[in-house]
């Protein structure tokens, strides 16, 4: 009995997700269709990538609020690059998209990391500046208009589906879902199974101790911000690929959803603890709420109120559990 209780206390978030799914499933016929569930996974993809990257910097005790803007910048740049290759193949399209993400996201992350580690500017302010600059750059490179005219293959990664059959001529499993699962899995393994990952936890848990144990906290911070930037950018290029065009206003405010998902997944804003896998439960909860409420035709205003409330509850719950432990 007490074992179940302990498990539940630790995994309240999973229980909550299950309750939400059952609730929406009972109140709406469409929700539980396999088609909708696959849609759900593709709707989770962007936020999943952003949250996976954010988990690293939040465990370090930092934050990155530039992810939404970096995503938009990478998105439009991938489209601008893509326009230069009108005869790209499917594989070529994927390469262009991923390469743009790695370069743009990597540079933005590197910028954040360098400013934070070399100039000792707090992450909140650094990434606030990057957020504004990246958004500005997005409008500069696009002139404020959408970047369009990309070949259809460009949208394979973001909108393509695999396994076609009679009832689903366009395919069942979203490519973006598989891609995201693969990337998030790698991010999870890197954090939980490698020495680098352990160094991230150590640096976030107590930077003094980490430094005195021979860990280069600066390097760990730098790499984590680069990873976070790349993840954000991957999210952004997937949006561009899905829409087959680059919207300069894309991903506005997505940082808030990503931070919320990460925190919902139990990553402490104080640093030192958290997990990519658990952040995915946070991502799922937010996606399920959005999707379920869309299907029930609940107004988007109320959706915001509901999500805000849930974030607050999650944090209060987290605090309560910490207090109990101490």
């Amino acid at each position, binding site marked *: 009995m007490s074992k179940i209780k302990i498990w539940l206390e630790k995994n309240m978030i999973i229980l909550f997700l299950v309750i939400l799914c059952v609730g929406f499933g009972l109140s709406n016929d469409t929700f539980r269709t396999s088609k909708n569930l696959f849609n759900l996974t593709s709707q989770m993809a962007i936020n999943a990538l952003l949250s996976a990257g954010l988990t690293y910097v939040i465990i370090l005790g930092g934050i990155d609020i530039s992810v939404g803007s970096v995503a938009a910048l990478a998105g439009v740049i991938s489209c601008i690059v893509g326009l230069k290759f009108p005869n790209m193949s499917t594989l070529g399209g994927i390469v262009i998209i991923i390469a743009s993400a790695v370069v743009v996201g990597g540079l933005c992350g590197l910028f954040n990391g360098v400013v934070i580690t070399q100039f000792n500017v707090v992450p909140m302010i650094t990434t606030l500046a990057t957020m504004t600059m990246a958004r500005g750059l997005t409008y500069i490179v696009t002139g404020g208009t959408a970047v369009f005219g990309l070949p259809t293959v460009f949208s394979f990664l973001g909108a393509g589906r695999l396994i076609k059959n009679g009832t689903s001529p366009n395919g069942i499993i979203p490519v973006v879902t598989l891609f995201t699962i693969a990337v998030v899995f790698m991010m999870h393994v890197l954090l939980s199974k490698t020495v680098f990952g352990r160094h991230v936890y*150590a640096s976030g848990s107590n930077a003094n101790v980490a430094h005195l144990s*021979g860990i280069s906290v600066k390097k760990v911070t730098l790499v984590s911000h680069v990873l976070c930037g790349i993840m954000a950018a991957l999210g952004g290029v997937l949006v561009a690929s899905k829409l087959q065009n680059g919207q300069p206003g894309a991903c506005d405010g997505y940082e808030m959803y990503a931070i919320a998902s990460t925190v919902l997944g139990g990553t402490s804003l104080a640093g*030192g603890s958290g997990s990519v896998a658990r952040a995915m439960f946070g991502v799922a909860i937010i996606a399920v709420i959005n999707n379920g409420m869309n299907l029930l035709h609940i107004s988007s205003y109320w959706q915001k109120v509901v999500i805000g409330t849930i974030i607050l509850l999650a944090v209060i719950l987290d605090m309560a559990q910490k207090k109990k432990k101490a």
Partner: protein
Amino acid sequence: MKAKGPDTMEPYLRVKNIGKTFPGVIALNDVSADFYAGEVHALVGENGAGKSTLIKIISGVYTPTEGEVLLGGQAAGIETPRQALDKGIAVIHQELSIANDLTVAENIFLGEEPRIKGGMFLDRKKMNADAQKVLDFMKVSIRAGDVARRLTAAQQQMVEIAKVITKETKIVIMDEPTSSLSEHEISSLFEQVAILKKRGVAVIYITHRLKELFMICDKVTVMRDGCVVNTFKIDGVTEREIVSNMVGREMKDYYVRTVHTKGREMLRVENLSMEGVFKNISFAAHSGEILGIYGLIGAGRTEVMESIFGARGVTSGKIFVEGKEARFSSPRDAIASSIGLVTEDRRRTGLMLDALVKDNMVLPSLVQHQKRGGFLDIKWETETAAEYVEKMKVKTPSINTVIRTLSGGNQQKVILAKWMIANSNILILDEPTRGIDVNAKAEFYTLMNAFVENGGCIMAVSSELPEIMGISDRILVMREGLISGELSHDEASEQGIIELASLHSGI
């Protein structure tokens, strides 16, 4: 209940048959003690003996499960810390509660600031004048207008005491007040305690340093496992008796020291200097040797050690490890040369408090034991952590326990294990037994001895004279950034060390 009368020998504070249980633990069991005005009454006992629980009950943090607290013969009725404060009970904590950015005067009058004509405006002039009056009365050289951050730990403690004096406090509980003070600062603290005593304050004094009892206390109550073992008048008891009461057995000498054989030179520093901190530090340390380093706070001991470890820069000088010159630009380089550092502040720089015992132990060794592709070797981690928990007798439910929940002594063992796992053969220990109890100290010394007997080299910094004399094969004394002398174990006397550490003699 005893008859109340005009008897002046009536205890001011009396705890009677106090019991306190937490879920699954009996923290206090039938504890009774009397505290008199104008008396310094020590509470001693190992960690977990119940001292902290008792003072938390007296100061209103906990309510007892059984028994009662009497104040001036009447039920005290203290249920919150605020009520305790209102009834004149003040606690000076181990971790000081000073607001760093406020001035000394603002700290002294925090929450009770004088106001102009009782209105809403702060009467800063009066506040500063009153504060200065108290500080002058205490004969300490602190100015009321100074910002608290600039003060030393000892001076901050004086501010705490000034607070107590201004508030006309009746009972002062001092929780390990000397743990971060140097010998010199301790004696000035004791002067203040004497002043409090003269003013008729009942002082409850908690300490791990038994020597201090004989310097300022009138009575001592020994606690063990949540019970009061004995209460002694200080002139009728010896240190050894107190110790045996604390541990429940006779202890001949708790500074365990075995004879080591000094081996080859492991580390040599030549003319190490850091502008304004230390200068021309030269010495060598050998395998099979515990080199003690003594000095008052501010003498530069910690800074020298941190520089050797690569955690601090130096302006000039050379470091040789096993005869070869080494340049350490970060702790990582020092660790690669098999040096380990146990810092003086476990909580801040020694441990990841919310991480597991296992994770703390293997942290510096992860890279060395990684599998291909940078993956963690979980099997190695688990086995090694279990092995060292066993070997070093760390009392922990498992290697997967959060280290915060362990006692200080066990935490310290984990830190030592961490460097042993990292194959360090030169260990720098900065105040290795600060804040840990007698039994744990003895165990820790045994571990240190085993380490040097196996060919290791230890440099131990300590502010505790008996400790440095008890454990060291050789003692370096530092004063104001310089090495002021070197003594062998047999040469060392308390007198001699203190003279080297504090007197200006011909250097």
